[in-house]
């Protein structure tokens, strides 16, 4: 019996045994993003106008701010997983691939955090601005 770890495991080329969970998460997050995006599109098209006062006033309502926060979480997780899929398929050099994955993941977290902060600032800010 060998005490060595199989090479495939060391190089991360074997099954990590989390494929099904990842696949399921992709579908769940996609469905959530779709539902919340349709909600956003319908809400925006139904607003009387899209000027500063109307939009900021609208985002103070719990039933606007909360779906918006959830949309941001779902959307940025979805786009991060989608971009990773593309990178994994087309970036053949391992170094480039790892660098791109890290940059895209960090950028998605940063952009998502900016969006979350903006919504919270509007929601908890003084009314009328």
């Amino acid at each position, binding site marked *: 019996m060998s005490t060595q770890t199989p090479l495939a495991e060391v190089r991360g080329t074997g099954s990590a045994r989390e494929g099904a969970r990842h696949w399921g998460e992709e579908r769940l997050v*996609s469905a959530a993003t*779709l539902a919340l995006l349709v909600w956003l599109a319908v809400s925006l098209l139904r607003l009387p106008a899209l*000027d500063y006062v109307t939009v900021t006033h609208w985002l103070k309502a719990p039933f606007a701010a909360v779906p918006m926060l959830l949309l941001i979480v779902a959307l940025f997780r979805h*786009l991060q997983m*989608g971009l990773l899929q593309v990178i994994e398929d087309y970036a053949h050099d391992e170094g480039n691939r790892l660098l791109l994955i890290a940059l895209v993941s960090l950028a998605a977290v940063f952009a998502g955090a900016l969006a979350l902060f903006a919504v919270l600032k509007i929601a908890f800010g003084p009314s009328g601005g």
Partner: protein
Amino acid sequence: MHRNPSRPMAPHLTIWKWGPHMLVSILHRVTGTGLAIVGAGVFVWWLVAAASGAEAYATFVSWATWKWALIVPIGLTWAACQHILSGLRHFVMDAGAGYELQANRFWAWMTMVGAVLLTLLIWAYIYWRVTP
């Protein structure tokens, strides 16, 4: 990737006849990537502008409604419709349905036709709303 260049390569994309299913597959990736970069960028810009005050919001609106830049929101609408419809097609195929040649071809075309129709419908509604 370590590839021995003296070995023969499978024909792959260079020799296969294009079908609607191939087009819709690559469109799903292209529109997804475009939405992730441009769409999410505009989305964050809009929210941050709204959180930064009336003046920042006015700057965003003047850019977003500039008629020569309208290609961006219209293009994003089409990309979102295409990505959503081909995404819904993927859900059906994930469930194991829609692999028969005729059905597969038909629904691949329908995502593309549907995306253009939905884009026209949405922008016709927007045009109707902003026209006094």
